């Protein structure tokens, strides 16, 4: 169930991250955000990376998505090294990211428009993905008319519409309340099963990580290293009911045991920084 050896990518890996490190210069010296991080994701797998705030999760997200360069190590899709943004990897951001001037349908059609698809084709495909996230009937609405959870579904549909081989999400439910988060998790899981969508989720939410994932990677507090990999052998198909099961509780407890140390270190480091009068990098 526990597997700490992850330095070599599995032979059948779709996404492989090998020995990735990233350093940032700050006024207080060089900070290592991510250090020697290696893991791989198989096709169709749902993997979560969990870690305390400030552990370098978002740095890793930006590196894998190709928005951040200047790192050591290698990111590859199907064995081919990836540098910069890549059509195989579709990103969903933590922040509110729908285009406020576009309707739901036009938001979802955005990547198709960028790729130069004709209007009829992209409208048809966008409508399909709008329906997939359960927003049929809202195609002509503007984001401002929707709730936060609905807008985040639009963002997910938009990324799915580009049909990436790997769906990469950075805390996509962070701004939502707990109930919406659980239900949206159900939706994401259902879509993931339906599309057999390989998914990598970055999160700090334990429940979310265990609810959705096949495997959870626990990250250490700065520098962000891979602490442990936990297999979530809960049965599929799953829904949010799973959170009340005993097995779920065990997995959460197991991960929390690891995460707790790291989160405590994070809090201690923050306190020390405030006492020194320094700034959060």
């Amino acid at each position, binding site marked *: 169930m526990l597997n700490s050896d992850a330095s070599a990518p599995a032979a059948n890996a779709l996404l492989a991250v090998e020995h990735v490190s990233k350093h940032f210069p700050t006024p207080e010296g060089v900070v290592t955000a991510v250090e020697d991080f290696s893991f791989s994701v198989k096709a169709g797998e749902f993997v979560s990376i969990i870690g305390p705030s400030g552990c370098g999760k978002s740095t890793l997200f930006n590196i894998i998505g190709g928005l951040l360069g200047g790192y050591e190590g290698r990111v590859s899709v199907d064995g081919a090294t990836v540098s910069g*943004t890549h059509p195989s990897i579709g990103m969903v*951001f933590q922040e509110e*990211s729908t285009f406020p001037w576009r309707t739901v349908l036009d938001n979802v059609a*955005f990547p198709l428009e960028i790729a130069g698809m004709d209007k009829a084709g992209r409208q048809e495909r966008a409508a399909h993905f709008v329906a997939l996230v359960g927003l049929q009937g809202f195609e002509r609405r503007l984001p401002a008319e929707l709730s936060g959870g609905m807008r985040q579904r639009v963002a997910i549909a938009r990324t799915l519409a*580009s049909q990436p081989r790997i769906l990469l999400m950075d805390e996509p439910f962070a701004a939502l309340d707990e109930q919406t988060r659980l239900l949206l998790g159900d939706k994401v899981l259902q879509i993931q099963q339906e599309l057999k969508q390989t998914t990598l989720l970055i999160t700090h939410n334990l429940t979310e990580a265990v609810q959705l994932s096949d495997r959870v990677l626990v990250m250490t507090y700065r520098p962000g290293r891979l602490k442990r990999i936990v297999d979530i052998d809960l049965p599929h198909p799953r829904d949010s009911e799973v959170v009340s099961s005993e097995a779920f509780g065990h997995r959460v407890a197991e991960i929390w045991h690891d995460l707790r140390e790291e989160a405590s270190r994070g809090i201690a480091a923050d306190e020390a920084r405030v006492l020194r009068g320094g700034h959060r990098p």
Partner: protein
Amino acid sequence: MSAAAPLPVAALGIARLRLAIVLVVLAAWEALSASGLLFRDVIPSLLKIGAALGKLLASADFYGNLGVTAGEISVALLIGGTAGLAVGIALGANRFLSQAFESLLLYLGPTPKIIFFPVMIMWFGVGPGSKVAMGVLSCFFPVAISAAAGMRQIDRVLIRVGRSFRATTWQMVTKIYLHAMREPIINGVRLGLGVAIVGTLLAETKLSNRGLGYLVIQAYALFDMPKMYALVIVLFVLSIGVNVAIGRLGRGVGTK
């Protein structure tokens, strides 16, 4: 503008006050004109101005010159606005360019452009060319400054979304930047249009052979005060109308 709906009584009061001010000014004007205290026609009677206005609006000459001025301002806005937008986006997108050139823009912006008029006459002649050049010089700066500021206000995540879908620079500009910056751009264009009108008309009154500014200064030279006042009234009304129209446009697209 206030959040709560104003009381109808207050609205009525405001309308009455405005009307009263206008009437008082008109009455004072008429009284001054009738008093004979001033040299003849410096303050012509309202009737004379009205008659001159009627004659002006009925003359083909007026519309020809109006067309010249409107054309000059439109071309100036098109050239200066496009150039300002391009420069503003480049400065807003690139920190290096911004540090190199933006202070220059901020210092040059408020300088009176009329000092370049002799140069423009040398380069573009006495005709509409030099007037367009003055209009371009005037409206470039507010549009560029607004666009640069607008670029920096764009929600960063929208730019990251565009990049993650591998949008080209042109796609980023047309599909993200211009939409996300609509309000600052419209504000910049409004300011730009205002100063383009000023720049063009000022140039026309200095040295020209066509346009409304030319008509005004010609009326002044011939001491045809009623016609001059009529022209001034027309110019005011037109400028206000254009500003209101752009404001409406801004609000119309802003809500969409």
